[in-house]
């Protein structure tokens, strides 16, 4: 089975892009499964199930970073898609954590950005962009050709290896190259690895200790008058 993981800031057009891709993939005889990972609300699974009659699911990551959540659940998801006799698993993640990227080696990583988001956005989204195989730029219909081209160059500066494809996700124009990239992705092997390194997560607050004051914590801590220091348990 092939795996394509799609990430990008909210409302950039991830679902719109995937919707057109799914239609075209189904036309080519592929059987798609769709998984949505979001923090606290999503309805893409219901929409796409109603539209295409394909198996869909969602998970809410809650206090977990959606990309970490993706790492946790992807194994189960592949099994689920397999049981449903699917040939392609498409995952849409909220991409809210700008320190992580959900892409795996052996699967296709798709980043969706909108041309309307300002020239500095590519500098701000981190590994979600720099580790993507394909970057789809949507909403080019809302800006001038000149701005589209400069935006594109800014992306390529940050992510020299990513293939940039412009698409109008309202009408599904420019989706074919993405569909080809999905079809060219080899079937995923068993031991998938997260692409890139996740950010350091050594902080006891992050892992749930809520007591106020550094005395209650360990690892790398900090007092008002001091720089970070290490405190063992």
């Amino acid at each position: 089975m092939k795996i394509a993981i799609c990430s990008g800031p909210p409302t950039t057009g991830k679902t719109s892009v995937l919707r057109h891709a799914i239609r075209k993939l189904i036309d080519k005889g592929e059987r798609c499964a769709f998984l949505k990972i979001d923090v606290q609300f999503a309805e893409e699974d219901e929409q796409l199930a109603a539209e295409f009659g394909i198996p869909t699911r969602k998970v809410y990551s809650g206090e977990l970073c959606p990309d970490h959540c993706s790492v946790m659940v992807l194994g189960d998801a592949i099994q689920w898609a397999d049981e449903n006799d699917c040939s392609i698993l498409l995952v849409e993640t909220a991409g809210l954590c700008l320190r992580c990227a959900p892409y795996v080696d052996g699967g296709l990583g798709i980043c969706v950005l909108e041309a309307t988001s300002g020239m500095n956005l590519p500098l701000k989204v981190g590994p979600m962009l720099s580790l993507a195989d394909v970057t789809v730029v949507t909403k080019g219909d809302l800006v001038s050709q000149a701005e589209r081209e400069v935006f594109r160059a800014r992306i390529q500066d940050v992510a020299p290896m990513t293939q940039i494809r412009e698409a109008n996700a309202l009408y599904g124009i420019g989706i074919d190259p993405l569909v080809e990239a999905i079809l060219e992705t080899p079937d995923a092997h068993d031991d998938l690895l997260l692409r890139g390194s996740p950010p350091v997560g050594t902080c006891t607050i992050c892992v749930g200790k809520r007591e106020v004051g550094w005395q209650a914590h360990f690892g790398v801590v900090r007092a008002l008058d001091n720089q970070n220091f290490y405190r063992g348990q």
Partner: protein
Amino acid sequence: MSEIESITIIGGRGKDGEPEPVERIDLQMGNVASIVGPTGSGKTTFINDIEMFADCDTPSMRRVLINGERPPREFRNDPSKNPIALITQHTTFLSDLPVGEFLEAHATVRAASGKHPDDMIERTIEFANELTGEPVGLDVRMTELSGGQTRALLIADATVICDTPIVLLDEVENAGIDRTRCLELLRRQRKVFIFVTHDPRIALLSDFRIVIAEGRVMKILGTNEAERELATKVSRLDDVLSRLRDKLRVGQALSGNELEGTLA
């Protein structure tokens, strides 16, 4: 691909799915065409199809050929190889970069070999400032430009920086720029120009008019001898109106016989 000699649009279908009456349009280098049709008829859609090198993958199902062939993908994926510049209907920029920085970035993106970006940026600003009454400066943020300044800068960018063999312009007349000067500057160059327009002066200035209704290209009208003669008069009339407009703009009172002799 070598020199661009022609561009062809193979007809698709209209909003209702019916096929377009005009099945094929061929434009040669040096041709000037205008697109005319009621508002909402699909003029912008038509030139957007061209800019995207539509290949049965847009709602109109049109196809675009360059030199009679399907254009290579690099036209879409590498702006420095894209032979088309499109000046869209937009009158605002979303980018908050200063004008100079933006133009430099775009010049680098579009850079064909042998052109010097610094000189290009200067010439772009000069060109833009010939079209607008309010000069554009290099340090102003793009988002602060007025509608007219935005269009002037886009036209200048397309002409000087992109300098492509094919130029598409969506309603230049709505821009609050010096139209006469704009047409004069543009027509000096041997390119394919396609103007979407509601303006009789621009429409009559072109070699032919592509008539659109309900998303379909209905027919193509060559500008005939009588229309060409009319065109000079229309231009004169238009110049008179422009002068009136300028006077009003700078706060002058009009004399009452401003139109004397012009309508003869």
